[in-house]
């Protein structure tokens, strides 16, 4: 069982990357020490009752006694968070959720395939770091990252992934960078071209629901296990309110209970693609 902390954290830096994106760095000893790739934190962006609830953000990167979140400004809470200054304090709970299963260290030498849509790059970058850390000379492991963005200006982390030694392929909706189309088109091209024998790999995906659904279909078709990270609106983020559930195949499904609900915040956000009922 991973540990969870509630801490008032000092903001070390808050950098606007463009009109819509920013990166915020928090000072913390315990959260970076315990966080797993795919876990998230619940952030109270102000001390007032508006906005009332915390907001979930994936752990994007950890340093020594710091960690970052990479965020898109979409509404009130993300705007307030984007305006934080170094020295401000923010109440944070984390790390939360289950995180990705990195897979065995040595056996199964196939590449790791990461599929990121939109802000999905945020937690997947941390996952890539974790997988890269586990490389050993006799278990050289290729990481291939497929990134999908609306357009070139929404493309995040491409350089960072490359610096980690990942192979990066890009798709944009408007074709301003890389393939014009969807990131799952890229994934499908790759899977189609790669011979069976080399496909002893695993897929990790995070992004909008339609993308994740498509990844699940591809994973089934090409018989590759996929772990996908879901998003739902959250009230508590710790498994108490039952507000963030997703339909999964019931273990002993019957006519009366053809499915079960699992909590995205506590039993997820990472699920095996095959267990989700879309």
């Amino acid at each position, binding site marked *: 069982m991973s540990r969870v902390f509630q801490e008032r954290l000092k903001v070390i830096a808050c950098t606007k990357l463009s009109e819509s994106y920013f990166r915020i760095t928090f000072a913390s000893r315990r959260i970076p020490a315990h966080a797993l790739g795919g876990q998230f934190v619940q952030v109270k962006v102000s001390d007032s009752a508006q906005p009332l609830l915390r907001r979930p953000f994936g752990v994007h990167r950890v340093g020594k006694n710091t960690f970052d979140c990479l965020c898109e400004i979409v509404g009130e809470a993300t705007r307030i968070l984007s305006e934080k200054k170094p020295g401000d304090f923010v109440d944070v709970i984390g790390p939360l959720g289950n995180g990705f299963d990195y897979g065995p260290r040595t056996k199964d030498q196939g590449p790791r395939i990461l599929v990121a849509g939109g802000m999905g790059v945020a937690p997947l970058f941390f996952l890539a770091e974790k997988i890269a850390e586990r490389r050993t000379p006799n278990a050289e492991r290729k990481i291939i990252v497929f990134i999908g963005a609306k357009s070139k200006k929404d493309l995040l982390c491409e350089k960072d992934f490359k610096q980690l030694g990942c192979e990066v392929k890009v798709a944009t909706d408007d074709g301003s960078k890389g393939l014009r189309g969807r990131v799952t088109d890229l994934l499908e091209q790759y899977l189609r071209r790669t011979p069976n024998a080399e496909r002893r790999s695993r897929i990790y995906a995070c992004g909008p629901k339609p993308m994740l659904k498509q990844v699940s279909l591809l994973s089934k078709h090409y018989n590759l296990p996929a772990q996908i990270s879901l998003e739902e*609106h959250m009230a508590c983020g710790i498994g108490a309110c039952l507000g963030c559930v997703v339909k999964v195949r019931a273990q002993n499904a019957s006519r009366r209970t053809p499915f079960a609900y699992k909590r995205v915040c506590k039993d997820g956000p990472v699920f095996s693609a095959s267990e989700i009922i879309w």
Partner: protein
Amino acid sequence: MSANLKVRIGKLELANPVMVASGTFGYAEEFTELLDLRKIGAIVSKTITLAGREGNPMPRTCETPCGMLNSIGLENPGIERFLEQKLSYLASLGSPIIVSVASENDPGEFAAMVKRLEKDSRVMAIELNISCPNIKRARGKGQGSGLIAQDPKATYSLVKSCRRFTRKTLITKLSPNVTCISEIALAAQAAGSDAVSLVNTFSGMSIDVQAKRPKIACVVGGLSGPAIRPIALRMVWEVFQKIRIPIIGMGGIMDVQSALEFFLAGSSAISVGTANFVNPRVSLEIVRGIRDYLDKNKIKDIRSIVGALKL
């Protein structure tokens, strides 16, 4: 000497008057690492039904100005699995455990659950949730549907039928979605309820104008949080004028200030709901804050501020 914080609700003695509200604290296990659970005055479980319920479709929650809507639909494993799988952890914590029960449309199920809980010594009190806005009582043809807590006669007969089966402290949780809440409180009192909890959530809705869709799947849900506080407080005050049994006050309590408002309006104890999501430690911060307030004002006993509003 530090002030006395002990209060009595029926037969139940609480070390302090700050409880956590049903449905906002899970089965407590979710909060284990975030606060010292032994120090909470009492823990009210998520509402349990006789058979399990899978709950409502998603989305189940959305944020609203200074509040939130929820329509969870009483997802729970059913009473037997609750007793097997969830209660032992709750009972091991040391704070009194109050089990909340409900039924969609069958008063007989309430009585059956009360009977079952009566036999379990780990259960310290029972809360009758006759006010969940997210499941509706089916009435006879043509009468529409409504909550038991919207009808004084139905409230009286339900509480009466449960009272027969238990000597444990029985609490009735009331709905604010009524014209005259003290009428319902009086009915609960007359039927033998040891206390009333007020209030449950207010019916409300919210619309995504781009999509032209309701923000929660069931369209209408229950509003909670600071947005409802002034109305909840007014209801506590109204009921306090009319009844003798203790009131457990709740509705938008976020901090010690708002908690004290509820005592002054007539609550003998208070319950923290939505605020647990915002700050999981808030119940214990409120206990500490109440102690400081009493000490600073040289008040020896929490009971002396209950309903002490000056007019």
